[in-house]
């Protein structure tokens, strides 16, 4: 029902307020990173973002066309804040033609698959290869197995995910946008792995 919006109204208000203090420049305490979500259609990319940004889960969310943008700021324990500028891309294969537009220049790529779909895991591997070929080399990459709440339908083992992530120097986590499991952890872990600008 409430496929409502791809726009973070709440977040935008908060962020614009935040931004006026921060300015647009990254400093050691306030990071700003571009993050792109990639993965097969229907694995829950938009749901992960919605859960993270608005704390909502909508089982009947709508198809993303092209890409949609949301942003969210988190505070870490060391009192740094990280503002994620999240591009949530369309999942269908042919939209891959447009993906470079969004992942170019991104500091973080989150590749998502559905643990109940081996096909989506294959697709995730395609994306990892694509990013290794065309993404910026110092990109932080995360492999995310979503829909972890559907344990009984699991078809991709945790170990498979871990192994593949390890082989490719990625960070791995299984999440559930539905139950909010590990969603914040995902972004916090990413934030921790970000290269910090050295205070000069």
């Amino acid at each position, binding site marked *: 029902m*409430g496929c409502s919006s791809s726009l973070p109204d709440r977040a935008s208000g908060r*962020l614009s307020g935040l931004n006026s203090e921060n300015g647009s420049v990254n400093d050691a305490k306030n990071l700003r990173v571009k993050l792109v979500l990639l993965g097969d259609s229907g694995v829950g990319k938009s749901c992960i973002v919605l859960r993270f940004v608005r704390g909502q889960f909508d089982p*009947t969310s709508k*198809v993303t066309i092209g890409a949609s*943008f949301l*942003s969210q700021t988190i505070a870490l324990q060391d009192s740094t804040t990280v503002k994620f*500028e999240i591009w949530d891309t369309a999942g269908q294969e042919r939209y891959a033609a447009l993906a470079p537009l969004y992942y170019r220049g991104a500091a973080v790529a989150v590749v998502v698959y559905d643990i109940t779909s081996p096909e989506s895991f294959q697709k995730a591997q395609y994306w990892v290869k694509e990013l290794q070929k065309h993404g910026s080399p110092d990109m932080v990459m995360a492999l995310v197995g979503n829909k972890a709440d559907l344990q009984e339908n699991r078809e991709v083992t945790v170990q498979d995910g871990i192994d593949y992530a390890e082989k490719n120097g990625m960070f791995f986590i299984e999440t559930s946008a539905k139950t909010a499991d590990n969603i914040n952890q995902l972004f916090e872990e990413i934030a921790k792995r970000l290269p910090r600008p050295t205070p000069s």
Partner: protein
Amino acid sequence: MAEKISHLSHTLEPKRDAYGFALRPQHLQRYREYANIYKEEEDERSEKWKNFLEQQADTAQNCWSQRLHKESLPSGVSEHRDGTVSDRPAEGDDPSDNKPSDSRIGSSPEREVHSTENLRSREHKDRTVSDRPAEGDDPSDNKPSDSPIGSSLEREVHSTENLRSSEHRDGTVSDRPAEGDDPSDNKPSDSSIGSSPEREVHSTENLRSSEHRDGTVSDRPAEGDDPSDNNKPSDSSIGSSPEREVHSTEKLKSDKVPRWANIRPVLGAIENMMSFRIEKAKNVEDDLKGVNGAHLPTVDEVSHLGQNSEDDSEGDVEIDEASNGSTHSCKGERAASEGTPLESSFPWREELECLVRGGVPKDLRGEVWQAFVGVRTRRIERYYQDLLAREASDDEGKALDNSCDVQQKLKKQIEKDIPRTFPGHPALDENGRNSLRRLLIAYARHNPSVGYCQAMNFFAGLLLLLMPEENAFWALVGIIDDYFGGYYTEEMIESQVDQLVFEELMRERFPKLVNHLDFLGVQVAWISGPWFLSIFVNMLPWESVLRIWDVLLFEGNRVMLFRTALALMELYGPAIVTTKDAGDAITLLQSLAGSTFDSSQLVLTACMGFLAITEARLHNLREKHRPSVLEVVEERSRKGRVWKDSKGLATKLYSFKHDTPSLVKETKSIERPEDVAADADASHLDNSSHLEDLLGGLAVDSEVDSLPDLQEQVVWLKVELCRLLEEKRSAILRAEELETALMEMVQQDNRLQLSARMEQLEQEVTELRQALADKKEQETAMLQVLMRVEQEQRVTEDARICAEQEVAAQKYAVHVLQEKYEIAMISLAQMEKRVVMAESMLEATLQYESGQNKAQQSPGSARSQSSAQETPARRIGLFGLGWRDRNKGKPSVEESCESPQKEITNRELEQQPK
């Protein structure tokens, strides 16, 4: 479905808008504010459209009546017709649905109008009747007036139709609701004919329809309900299908998804105009067949296929042919009799354009859109059903064919997306989703080069809300194949090209904004890409989306996309410029766009503010940018190599500069076809069909005209002149814009100043360096001096040490001397003692001698001797004595002599310790 729609007003949650689409919570307030405005606008435009359509109806009648009369002759009324008729309301999904709508009609103020107008309209009735078949060239299309919204929304048309309706109809209106529900209604066909305007249509069609036809008709809606039906031959003429009976019984009870409905007669004129466009396009494409080989050939092929499959249903084929023939003959007739090309036969085009920009009334939208896209012209009988029927053979037959694989993949994707298309929309229930599924699958089979692309699900869903399934299919075909050709294919090339074109237009129109976005690191395509791909569905409030679609479908190209996107940038650019980081800029633009409730402002800004954006212009720009996209795509597909970076600033500047000449060319190119046309006109006046072909071959956009009548030609030329003047004006405007942009750039370009400053600074630096060097020199000099001084100091120190040593040595020498002196003094004292001793000894001796002498004196000699002896002694004595005397005589002197000596000694002795 329609039931749902009709009850929407009741079941509507507050979260949904008048179309049943979800509203974002944050927009609720604004939507409510605008709801009233929308209503006012709606009323206003309903009025305008009504007038326009009435006018059209009148002219159309004059134009068409004769021929149609003829057509309607070979007719026989069949009882079954009623079944068909009763079916029609079912297009609204549920027969029961008719009642509310009818009763509404009855209660509507227009009703009264009818009754009064009927008085004078009666005489027209004949004409009306004959009129109708004309609009449905194809007799099989015999359900003219229906659309899913029709049941609730048709008032408009009724009102116009009623003008022509006969008196007794009024009385029989009450019949109508019953029809839908009650099969028993079938018998009194005469009364029912009169019962409603729609009826009337049927009655005319009945005249020429054959019995089995209505079977077909009744069949179709039933199919919609049940997916299992898809595979079965839907035509009743294939009567062998066991389904037939089921349908006939079921059709009245079950919800129905209508398959095909004709467009309301009043819109026929519009439809004709638009279909003219399509035919023209087809001709062009046929000419280019070898080169382009697009989808239309497919359509042709299948049309044969479709006809073949229809061989059983002779009636249908006959009718098809008849209608085709009539269409052709009609065309020929018109072309021959009038000899005038497109524009002059539709003098009201401009008026219509105005109306469309003002918005299409909700009630008419579905049908108007169909007319715009040319659904009926595109339609090929049974094509849709055949596409769906293919499923069976696909599933049973070829197991793992390659194409089958692709189809499976697409199907899977469609399955995934169906529940995610307008989730929760009241009309997209089980049946709605089934329709959506069939529609998308049919399209995927129709055009394998596109298959299914996300975004089409939304278009299909939207179309399904406005028209019956099969109509929606043909509308979708029109939109995706024609309007958006190459957009949703595997590589999405045209979509990428359009983004480059749009970026160029943005740079040209809003240099400041683009500069700001560049500064923030935001690419225009990030935002405009989704806008274009979704044709603003889900990006803007629905009222705005529909208004844009109105214009877009009317114009039949993507110009409106660009104009709308530019209008949004114009509206929100000033706000965007104030943002300070990329995230904020994008978020702001997204949310502002999402709350563009003032649809009229948007559409008018788009249409009026960006007249210079024409299809011709876009075409040129696309040609310019396409190679780079193709190159990238090729590169990617070939090697999977690095995605090419966006073009450098230099290239962009280059293209920016080279725009202006292209505009000039454009105006020229517009002129050219006219000449050609005029020539053609002169030489082929007699051969109108040839002329038509030729005209068809010309560019769609340049509305070519060739008039035998000089006066008309003059008028036309005037129009053309006006247009050119306008173009010129816009070119001048643009030039001015460019100039100001340039000025801005120049102003911003303070490089000269900077370099001057640099030089200055450099000079300062060198001076400072010099000073530094000088200082250094001085320092070294100082150092040297210092060193010297130090050396000297060292030397003096040495000297001092030497001197000290010398002093010490001297002191030692003094000491030694003193010691010597002392020794000498001692020895002197000893010597003195000895001298004293010697003196005393001498005295003693002398005394002894004198004693002896005295003794001897007695002896003289002794005395002389003694005197002789005495003399020396005396001398000695004298000497001695003298010395002694002197000493004795001057004891003070001796002592004083001695004392200084002693003093010295003492002094020396005293000194010595020192």
